């Protein structure tokens, strides 16, 4: 319980650094830290596979590419933009909707205890689910990523 609260507080603080710090490099590093802390929470939930995949894919690969781009552009400290009332309204509404959704979920599922199967979080159990029951969403996601890759190549070619 103590570990959970420690991780929770630390990850929220680290997430705040992501959006509040002025230097893009520090923002990216704080995001890496946040992803790490969330992976630690996955470990506490017995989901070892998800935890390590999160570290390998997000913290180890995607964020390195983020840093790579930031360094290549050698971006300085950000300049705060004021105004843009419409954007601000839209952001507020989105956050409010998300908060409502999360709150509703917590209220609805409160006090519900679900017994976990012994194989919960194991690689076999997860793979079984992923490749049988959820195979269609899985394949559609891969297709989506493929489209993104092809799109990036097309855009890069057109520029060059």
């Amino acid at each position: 319980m103590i570990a959970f609260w420690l991780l929770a507080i630390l990850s929220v603080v680290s997430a705040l650094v992501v959006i509040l710090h002025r230097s893009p490099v520090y923002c990216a590093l704080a995001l890496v830290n946040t992803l790490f802390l969330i992976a630690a929470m996955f470990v506490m939930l017995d989901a070892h596979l998800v935890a390590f995949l999160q570290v390998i894919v997000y913290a180890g690969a995607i964020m390195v590419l983020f840093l790579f781009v930031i360094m290549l552009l050698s971006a300085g400290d950000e300049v705060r933009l004021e105004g843009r009332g419409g954007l601000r309204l839209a952001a507020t509404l989105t956050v409010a909707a998300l908060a409502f959704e999360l709150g509703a979920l917590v209220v609805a599922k409160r006090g519900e205890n679900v017994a976990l199967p012994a194989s919960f979080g194991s690689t076999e159990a997860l793979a079984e689910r992923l490749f049988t029951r959820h195979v269609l969403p899985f394949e559609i996601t891969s297709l989506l990523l493929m489209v993104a890759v092809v799109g990036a190549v097309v855009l890069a070619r057109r520029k060059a």
Partner: protein
Amino acid sequence: MDLLIIFTKCLVALLLVLQVGILLLWVERKGSALIQDRVGANRANLFGGILPFNLGIVNTLMADPLKLFTKEDIVPEGADHFLHWLAPFLALFPLFLTFAVIPFGDVLEVGGRTINLQAVDLNVGILFVLALVSMGVYGVVLGGWASNSRYALLGGIRGSAQMISYEIAMGLALVAVVLTFGTLDLQQIVRAQGQLMWGVIPAWGVFYQPLALVILFIAGMAESKRAPFDLPEAESELIAGFFTEYSGSKQSVFMLADFVEVAIVAALVTTLFFGGWQVPWLQRDGFHFPGGLSLALPSLLVTLLQVLSFLLKLFLFCWLQILIRWSLPRLRYDQLMNLGWKRLLPIALVNVAISAVLALALQGWTVR
């Protein structure tokens, strides 16, 4: 008592990786001299050369770190102090943790207890190693960025591109290995390699996944950023690449991280492809040679032989990497990217596909 055992195991794993790393420092200096027909480090001798044999190793191991740690620590002007300080630790710390899941022996039977000779028994050991190795890149990237120097920045950018590229081939090689053994647990993988093929040859991973071995070894060497893959460091063009602006103890931490990475690649290759701590035909109760000859041995001796076998293989593959590092010229940057993306990646993909088909079609092909 249990806590004490766990603590001791973690300490052993940590000391093992530290000792191997520092020892490699000496092997590199003397070994490179051997390869280049020089004498090498010869000024450090104990007792002024009275002894008939040279105890230089002791002195080199003491003198080198002492010299490095007493040097002035310089932080360049305009550098980001916090990140400049943090980067060496980010390079070294994840690598230290990696050895926690590498099994260095089977079990130790002492006083009615059976101790698993692996610091942490994790059922997703391979992923743990991959995750931590992928973390090592932050040290390189941040070291390059925080130094406020063009050379360092170029080295850092090269480093991040190189390590990401080769990580993919490395991961795919590991997927093929996992298909063969059907588990992500490193201790179980080593145990499975104790079986025999046709009752004669030990069922080591190298006989099932020769291609994966080659890919993993090349990708691992690229991850450790040493010649022929030392583009991020590139002495002849970038001074010292990402750690150009580092001196004293921080620079030595980067150097140690390189050697620890060499040790990790060697440990991975040993564990996955060459039976880890397995000695051919040695079972828990002694040798059982093909042909019916047996030799009973006490349990403690068997454990000792197995740990020695692991260390021997570990040092063999460390030496092989040093040999390659001092024999081959450096790749050009485009050659490096071509090798990673156009050679290793497609070969690794084909290897995974073939392995998957074989694992499905031939029930006896996998090692469980």
